């Protein structure tokens, strides 16, 4: 009954993928959007519950060593599914409002999610490639959803061209690694790792492919345009779920596959982290468009995440995992409220000028946006603060005090642009009367849940952090991939 076990190990991904295919069928035969939406929610909730249960379960390999389950992978799946579910919850109303409530959106989200789950559970380079491509191709289509607008077409084309380019790097890296070691399985590559040029170049190219996906500087050029042109709730999905999946895969690769002896990877990551934090934060300072501002902010956050990765300690990896969840919570929240304001007709509500006075007109939305922005800025006692705290603590404990200092200074600069929307929302008078669309119950409830999570995980982050640390306790390298 081995295949049942295999199925069980990848059940969240199987459910999401199958639901995506069914959604496509429903869309082509019946065009029943309510049904598709319901199916999407149910399948995502089911997958999410399963992967939450897996977080506490055993760790092992399945599908003849192609994927891992439990532990880090299960947590990665949880974050991805959490992102997907919450983005879908706020998508319906928004997409209806911008008249793009197409059935295939949900199908594409589900299929992309299954790709992300494969990516986050990968134990083999082929699996990484398949997962990454499944995810990316769906996202290319989603980015061009508003095809009648120039920005939408630009987003899709740019994302596709640069994404394909980066996949080239990734694939070439994999080929070189195969040439150097004769295998594609991650644990086996780890054993065969050497300091041969072939291996080092292969690993380097592989990392470059990932740096594209997580939009690390200098591979970040696509991010602002794509984030701006994509429908906002889908941007939230791209910014959180796909980034989380890529980061979890990156953790798996860096922690398991590329031993420090082959090259000083930590130095490479440190340099990239420093550039990413500085460039992301500095360019964000001058953005007047909320979505572009959040895009640069997400570049900066990739930098903070890389700090934890550069620490290259169990503590650093578990800090990155915690940060991924924190980042998803607050970013979906922020994008969700941007999407809410954007629906008001007549003005381009992604322009920060039009936020003037909105905080008092829509007090709950205003307070929640402030909360998410404070959290992104890393003000205690919100979840963003403890995410940053853990990442920098890991770096300091690994002796990288300079890196941590650059990080905190960059995040001090970031406060300026996180405060700007609040300056407009609260400190300026509105310049035009806008009649507001009332947000639906689901929409509001989703955002309120996110706001509560922002505070809850900021105050009571201990339990989750203990769980994440336990993945790396003891003989963590071996235990994470030996069944």
């Amino acid at each position, binding site marked *: 009954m081995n295949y049942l076990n295999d199925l069980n190990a990848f059940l969240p991904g199987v459910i999401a993928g199958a639901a995506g295919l069914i959604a496509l069928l429903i869309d082509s035969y019946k065009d029943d959007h309510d049904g598709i939406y319901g199916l999407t929610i149910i399948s995502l909730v089911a997958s999410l519950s399963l992967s939450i249960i897996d977080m506490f379960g055993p760790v092992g390999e399945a599908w003849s060593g192609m994927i891992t389950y439990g532990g880090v992978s299960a947590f990665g799946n949880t974050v991805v599914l959490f992102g997907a579910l919450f983005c879908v919850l706020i998508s319906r109303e928004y997409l209806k409002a911008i008249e793009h409530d197409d059935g295939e959106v949900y199908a594409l989200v589900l299929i992309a999610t299954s790709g992300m789950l494969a990516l986050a559970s990968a134990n083999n380079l082929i699996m990484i490639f398949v997962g990454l491509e499944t995810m990316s191709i769906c996202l290319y289509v989603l980015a061009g959803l508003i095809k009648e607008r120039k920005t939408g077409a630009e987003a899709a084309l740019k994302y596709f061209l640069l994404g394909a380019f980066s996949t080239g790097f990734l694939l070439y890296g994999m080929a070189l690694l195969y040439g150097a070691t004769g295998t594609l399985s991650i644990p086996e590559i780890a054993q065969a790792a050497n300091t041969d040029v072939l291996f080092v170049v292969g690993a380097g190219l592989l990392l470059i492919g990932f740096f594209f996906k997580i939009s690390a500087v200098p591979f970040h050029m696509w991010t602002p345009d794509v984030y701006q042109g994509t429908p906002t709730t889908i941007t939230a999905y791209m910014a959180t779920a796909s980034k989380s999946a890529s980061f979890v895969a990156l953790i798996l690769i860096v922690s398991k596959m590329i031993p420090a002896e082959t090259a000083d990877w930590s130095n490479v990551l440190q340099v990239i982290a420093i550039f990413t934090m500085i460039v992301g934060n500095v360019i964000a300072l001058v953005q007047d468009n909320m979505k572009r501002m959040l895009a640069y902010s997400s570049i900066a956050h990739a930098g903070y995440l890389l700090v934890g990765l550069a620490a290259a300690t169990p503590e650093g990896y578990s800090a990155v995992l915690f940060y991924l969840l924190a980042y998803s919570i607050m970013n979906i929240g922020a994008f969700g409220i941007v999407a809410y304001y954007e629906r008001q007709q007549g003005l381009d509500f992604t322009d920060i000028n039009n936020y003037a006075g909105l905080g008092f007109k829509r007090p709950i939305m205003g307070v929640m946006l402030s909360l998410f922005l404070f959290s992104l800025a890393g003000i205690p006692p919100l979840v963003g603060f403890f995410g940053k705290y853990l990442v920098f603590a890991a770096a300091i404990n690994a002796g990288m005090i300079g890196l941590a200092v650059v990080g905190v200074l960059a*995040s001090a600069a970031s406060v300026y642009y996180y405060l700007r929307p609040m300056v407009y929302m609260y400190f300026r008078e509105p310049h035009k009367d806008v009649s507001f669309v009332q947000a639906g119950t689901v929409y509001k409830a989703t955002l309120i849940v996110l706001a509560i999570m922002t505070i809850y995980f900021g105050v009571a982050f201990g339990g989750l*952090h203990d769980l994440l640390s336990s993945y790396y306790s003891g003989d963590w390298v071996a235990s994470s991939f030996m069944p």
Partner: protein
Amino acid sequence: MQLLLNICIYLPLAGIAGILVARNDKATKWISLVTTALTFLLSLLLIFNFDISASGTAQFLTEGAPIIEGMDIKYLVGLDGLSLLLFMLTTLMGPIVILSSWNSVKKHLAGYYAMLLLLQTASMGVFASLDLIVFYVFFELSLIPMYFLIGIWGGEGRIHATVKFFIYTLVGSLIMLVGLIYLGYDAGSVMEGVRFSTDWRFLSSGAYQIGLVEQTYLFAAFALAFCIKVPLFPFHTWLPYAHTEAPTAGSVVLAAIMLKMGTYGLLRVCLPIFPNAFAEFAPYMGALAVVGIIYGALVAMVQKDVKKLVAYSSVSHLGFVVLGLFAVNTISVQGALLQMVNHGLSTGALFLIVGMIYDRRHTRMIDDFGGIAKVIPVFAVMFMIATLASIGLPGLNGFIGEFLILNGAFNSEIIPQNAFAVFAALGVILAAVYMLWMYQRVMFGPLKHKVNEKLQDLNAREIGILVPLVILMFWIGIRPVDFTQYSEVQVNELLEASQEKRLAIEQSAKAEELPEWASALYDVTNELASQTKNR
């Protein structure tokens, strides 16, 4: 009793919940007033039950479980001699600032009072917390309400002022965060069973000693954050903007409570944990303090805006506090602690008074007044008392604090030059000049402007706000022992312990290899090296 302390800290949060439920302007005011007044009354129970002679650990201690396994970060609050008076000052200012904005704030009432209440909780938390991470959380949390208070309800240039205030203070505290994390791991490395600890009781004890090199860097990181908050010259540039643009209540809380977080942090964190660096940098910090005293006074003298004048006088007054702290002896530190409270009372009162006159005339320029003492006599009396208290007239509170600080600085072993005390004393004279000159131009002389003839004198509410402050000014001025007794045991203990620790660290440093700059700075000669030379 420990439950009572927690109730005090979090009661204002319950008030916020009440405001959100009530959604009614009148109820909002009353809810805020009742919660802050109740907090004050409950905190009186704390001070009555405070054991003055108790030494060692803090009282009313609540100790939570560690938040993370293997890391000693926990909810730890309690009061001791160092924090009690400042805690009481915070609870006292609560109802006063609520009452002071009773009629003057008209827009977005719910938000305004919610921010004041949140600020109240954060400030009490700062003074009560004994775990440095918890301290840091409250320290940062206090920025958010102040940011909105200045930004929404402030004056013309409020946006610039509040953003500058926020970012300036945040840069300092983020550097402190790096230091704090390093400190935590360093402490964890000598503790058994945990990897990380920020428990102040352990960090300040003699059992935990930091090497001289680390101490220098850590002291720099922490002191920078606190000096920005104080603000010590030359980090004071955010203060005049923030004070001038803030609404009255914001200025009062900023002056009376938030600035104290900086000086309190220097005393609570820097002195016991980095005693060598504290002593070694004392002359430099003392010099900055003295420069601040004189600079603040001179700039205050030429101000045309009464509020800005009071703001610069804060720079000057807090220079005294910092000087007292870095003189590191019982008299000066006691003086510094008392002066923190004094400054809260007298500058708080001055900001309230400026706010009252602003409510009437919507201007704060000295030129717009003159000769109004006859029109509003009660106001004139109150203003006079607060002015004299701020100058340091004997019989009022300011005198005691400044006297103790100057006395201590004169006899200090850590900063031996008398010049510090001498130049600081100049500040007292300058204070008399700028305050009395301002008072004369505002209150006396011929009545220059017609509009001022119809000024209303203080009403019952305004008198009620000022009377408790005036009573305390006299009380501290006449019987300071009633207040200094709370901190006496603790200050003595702290100074002795840090003295011992300083010598012990110096001793052990002699056996270690030190970089050249460190051995030169701390005047430690390496015994091993000198032994080899002797041979």
